[in-house]
């Protein structure tokens, strides 16, 4: 096949952002189309270059073709939407029903999150996987933070062994997710700004664990409500076809949930902290698109 045609197919592939098997089928189908078209054009008397150029004109822009095929495939079913929203809804229930203090509930939920994340990962990374994947990384980050509170003589264990391992794991999963589609990384990281927001708003000044627990208990219904909002966001995201709408729904959701945190904590979050959180939220949700470009360029 001529280089110009291979470049066309590469460009379609780069912009498709489908799972590997669907992507392979689409490219194979377009390749077959090009093969037939070029052969017919050659038989009508055109040179190889002319046939290739006419074929590309008839096909139209690679980006447009890729975008339209993406939109034909992107919309998930209501079942997938519900499955994707489930981890957020479970966390919402955990707080609304005040189960977050029960170790059994926490361990049960953690086990469910891990099982779903591993299952989805090995089933070809469907769209519903990514919210589960995000929550499955929470214990990794939480354990790293807890290890920092170990007695001084033990903190080297965290620094030498656990932190590099945890960072490597986070990096590997993020890169793999970005390779699939950067929007799924944003979907995976969606709760991060909200969790950080609640953490900053609830953190007591005198650092006493009892105060912290009391505040958590006071704010639990509102924390649950923000997770419910995240669940609705994720379900909407899965049902949308167009990428720009998907990006918009994530950003709007970030704005709404952070505003909810600021509103329900009645000024415990300063305006500066709120604005910084907004910037962090935009960075968390949109920077994966920049990382995707770097990953793709380095992969070439």
């Amino acid at each position, binding site marked *: 096949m001529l280089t110009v045609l291979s470049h066309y197919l590469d460009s379609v592939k780069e912009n498709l952002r489908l799972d590997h098997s669907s992507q392979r089928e689409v490219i194979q189908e*377009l390749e*077959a*189309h090009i093969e037939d*078209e070029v052969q017919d054009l050659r038989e009508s008397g055109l040179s190889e270059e002319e046939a290739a150029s006419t074929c590309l004109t*008839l096909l139209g822009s690679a980006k447009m*073709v890729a975008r339209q095929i993406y939109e*034909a495939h992107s919309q998930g079913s209501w079942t997938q939407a519900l499955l994707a929203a489930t981890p957020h809804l479970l966390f919402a229930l955990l707080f609304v029903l005040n189960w977050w203090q029960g170790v059994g509930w926490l361990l049960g939920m953690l086990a469910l999150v891990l099982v779903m994340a591993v299952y989805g990962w090995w089933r070809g990374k469907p769209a519903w996987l990514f919210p589960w994947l995000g929550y499955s990384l929470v214990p990794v980050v939480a354990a790293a933070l807890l290890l920092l509170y170990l007695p001084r003589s033990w903190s080297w264990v965290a620094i030498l062994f656990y932190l590099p391992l945890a960072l490597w794991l986070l990096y590997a999963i993020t890169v793999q997710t970005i390779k699939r589609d950067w929007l799924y990384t944003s979907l995976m990281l969606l709760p991060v700004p909200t969790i950080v927001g609640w953490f900053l708003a609830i953190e007591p000044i005198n650092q006493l664990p009892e105060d912290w627990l009391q505040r958590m208990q006071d704010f639990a219904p509102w924390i649950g409500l923000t997770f419910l909002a995240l669940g609705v966001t994720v379900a909407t995201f899965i049902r949308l076809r167009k990428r720009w709408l998907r990006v918009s729904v994530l950003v709007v959701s970030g704005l709404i949930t952070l505003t909810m945190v600021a509103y329900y904590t009645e000024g415990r979050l300063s305006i500066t902290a709120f604005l910084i959180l907004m910037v962090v939220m935009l960075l968390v949700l949109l920077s994966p698109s920049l990382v995707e470009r770097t990953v793709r360029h380095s992969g070439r």
Partner: protein
Amino acid sequence: MIKKNELIKGNTDALLLCVIARQPMYGYQIIKELDSRSQGYFKFKEGTLYPALHRLEKGGLARGEWRTLPNGRQRRYYHITEKGLNVLVAKRGQWLDYLTAMNRIIQPVPE
């Protein structure tokens, strides 16, 4: 005046379902078939054909299946499904009603 492209765009699904209802076909074949049966009227922007076929498949109106041709090449054939046939019958009915109504109005009245 309605542009030809807009007419095709609004009826893409019906046109594709009509073609594959006769016999299963692959993308390039569908384009050639539409071109020949419409005597060159329906010139599809080829890149838009595959998104439309995939949309039909995703909606359960068509089913794609890889087949190996006698020359060893593989092509993805699209078959119409039961649901697709029902949609086609409905679309055909709508279109015929529309044509009848249009003809009643658009034809010159004999003096």
